[in-house]
């Protein structure tokens, strides 16, 4: 069944979706400031107490991942709701629970000094050497649990709706087309394929996360209950890796929907496309083991699998998407504006950002680069220049089709400013990594400081550019529904 059903009145949902993007965008901009403060501290420009540095690190990591996931979920919901019947009520619950969770996390970190980084690796939350107490840890852990509950509700709803319309999650991934039972023309649209993938991996991630969070909570309340730390680490990274990874798979939907409209060409689903998404579904679930390459007690086969699949993980989807995007755009006479420009830029960022990751997922290299700033170098590139740019692309897209707010010269300047700045921030991390600067160190030797200072300066430009993007979107939110281009109703798949 590939007919378009669902609540086909997208405009009535725009306010709700817009809210998730405004919150996501503002939090991302705010978290950038903490990033700059960290770099300034590492660069020896300002003096920040060690305890404070780790609070910054915790809030920056948690906030960025949480906010980007929130906004990306909004993007996914916006497009998916055209094909399946999603519940608005659930989305409101999702927003509310995420907000409650965020408030608890912020209070836990800043009022109660919780600073275990966003990975809250057991048994750190309970054993802080008195850096923080029980209350801070509980606020953070329970806040994360509530936030996760919000996301879980959302994915239960998307999963339920996809099964209702397409029959099963397997069919949502197009397995009956891959196996030849169904014709290619009847394949599920790209939005549905991507949403199904995200539903599968994130539901698994959130269940693992809930288990390990409650385990930590028990341990914080009563430290005489102890657990196997290696299993805890496995579950923690199964949650963290998958959840962070899924952000880009939600956000990329905007590229799928937007480029064909702009280029006025079809971007058809192919068998290769379906196979790629299925492969990435499986790989994403398994490769968190690349975080365990230094844990000698892990079974060797798991580490080898982690390495082999990490090479392969992002690639299938990345290749079909980047190749597809090029094909759609090539010689199409596409109109470049902010939305399409950002969408294209994000594909570039994603592609470039994956390279350092692949290098680092090699066990031999990992022995040297593990826990150096090479790692943040890779994920700032592919998050900052990939996933987050997709979110901004969606913001400009929505503003264009649903209001008469015009793009100005300033937006264009912001585009280039953003691209250069995030590239510099990422490159700075990579250079530091190559200099063997460890990640997550509050204090740097003088020889490590220069890249950090450079990164902080670039970061300031990044905040300015991001603010311009957000201001444009807030102006749209105030003028919603004033005009709206006809692209809104246009069908593409």
């Amino acid at each position, binding site marked *: 069944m590939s007919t378009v059903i669902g609540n086909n009145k997208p405009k009535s949902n725009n306010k709700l979706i817009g809210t998730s993007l405004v919150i996501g965008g503002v939090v991302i901009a705010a978290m950038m400031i903490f990033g700059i403060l960290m770099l300034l501290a590492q660069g020896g420009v300002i003096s920040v107490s060690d305890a404070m540095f780790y609070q910054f690190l915790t809030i920056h990591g948690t906030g960025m991942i949480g906010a980007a996931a929130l906004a990306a979920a909004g993007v996914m919901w916006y497009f998916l709701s055209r094909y399946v019947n999603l519940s608005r009520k659930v989305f409101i619950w999702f927003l509310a629970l995420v907000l409650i969770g965020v408030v608890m996390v912020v209070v836990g970190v800043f009022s109660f000094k919780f600073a275990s980084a966003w990975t809250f690796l057991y048994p750190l939350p309970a054993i802080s050497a008195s850096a923080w107490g029980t209350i801070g840890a509980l606020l953070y852990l329970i806040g994360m649990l509530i936030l996760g509950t919000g996301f*879980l509700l959302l994915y239960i709803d998307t999963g*339920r709706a996809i099964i209702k319309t397409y029959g099963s999650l397997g069919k949502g991934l197009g397995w009956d087309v891959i196996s030849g039972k169904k014709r290619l023309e009847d394949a599920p649209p790209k939005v549905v394929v991507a949403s199904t993938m995200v539903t599968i991996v994130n539901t698994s991630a959130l*269940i693992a996360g809930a*288990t390990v969070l*409650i385990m930590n909570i028990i341990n914080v309340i009563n430290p005489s209950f102890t657990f*196997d730390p290696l*299993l805890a680490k496995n579950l923690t990274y199964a949650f963290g890796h998958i959840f962070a990874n899924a952000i880009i798979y939600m956000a990329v939907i905007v590229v799928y929907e937007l480029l064909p409209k702009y280029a006025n060409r079809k971007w058809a689903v192919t068998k290769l496309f379906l196979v790629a998404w299925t492969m990435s579904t499986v790989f994403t679930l398994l490769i968190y083991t690349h975080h365990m390459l230094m844990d000698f007690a892990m079974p060797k086969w798991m580490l080898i699998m982690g390495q082999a699949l990490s090479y392969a993980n992002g690639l299938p989807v990345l290749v079909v998407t980047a190749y597809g995007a090029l094909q759609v755009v090539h010689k199409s006479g596409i109109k470049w504006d902010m939305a399409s420009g950002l969408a294209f830029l994000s594909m570039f960022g994603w592609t470039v950002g994956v390279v350092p990751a692949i290098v680092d997922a090699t066990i031999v290299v990992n022995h040297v680069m593990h826990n150096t700033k090479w790692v943040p170098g890779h994920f700032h590139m592919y998050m900052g220049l990939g996933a987050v740019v997709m979110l901004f692309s969606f913001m400009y897209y929505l503003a264009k089709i649903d209001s008469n707010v015009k793009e100005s010269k300033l937006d264009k300047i912001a585009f280039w400013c953003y691209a250069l700045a995030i590239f510099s921030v990422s490159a700075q991390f990579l250079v530091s990594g190559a200099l063997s600067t460890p990640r997550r160190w509050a204090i740097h030797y003088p020889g490590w400081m220069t890249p950090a200072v450079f990164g902080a300066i670039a970061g300031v430009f990044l905040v300015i550019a991001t603010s311009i993007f957000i201001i444009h979107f807030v102006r749209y939110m105030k003028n919603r529904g004033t005009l709206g281009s006809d692209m809104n109703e246009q069908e593409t798949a």
Partner: protein
Amino acid sequence: MKKPLIIGSSILLILLIPPIRVYMESIMIIHMLVQLPLLIIAGWFLGDYMISKIPKVFILSNDNGVPGIILFVAITMFWMLPRTLDEALTFPMYELFKFVSLPISGILLVDSWGKINDLGRIFIYLNYLSMFALMGWLYLDSPIQICNNYLVDQQKVLGWGFIFITAIMVLYVVQYVFTDQSELEET
């Protein structure tokens, strides 16, 4: 339709027979994973009967099923705490409370399960899935004896019992989401 009433009360009565009760409670895994669930099942049947007899009460008190299911979760979570199991053996009042509260939770479950929507059901199901996994982990890994009445060996057996249930629940979800549900919908 007296059948549910008969089934429900006979399960309850059998569980109450002193030698059976004492035997079941002497083995941790049977206490937690057989006796307690059977009490809930007894309540389920009794509830089935009561709903047909006095539907008004259920409509008035538990219209959309949400209060009922929340109470159900609260009661079952209470009895999953290692300590409560222990106290039930030590204090007769606790034991009495167990034999009252769990059948009541069964009544609440049968009434609420049909009323809450798919989303609620899946959410509750996944909650229990992760809770059971955690209980299994807790009992297996605990370096100390958690209960006064049961030895560490018994804890381990119970832990594996929870892991087994979790595995079954995971398999069920996987087969559910990957087999075609659309034919079922249309009938």
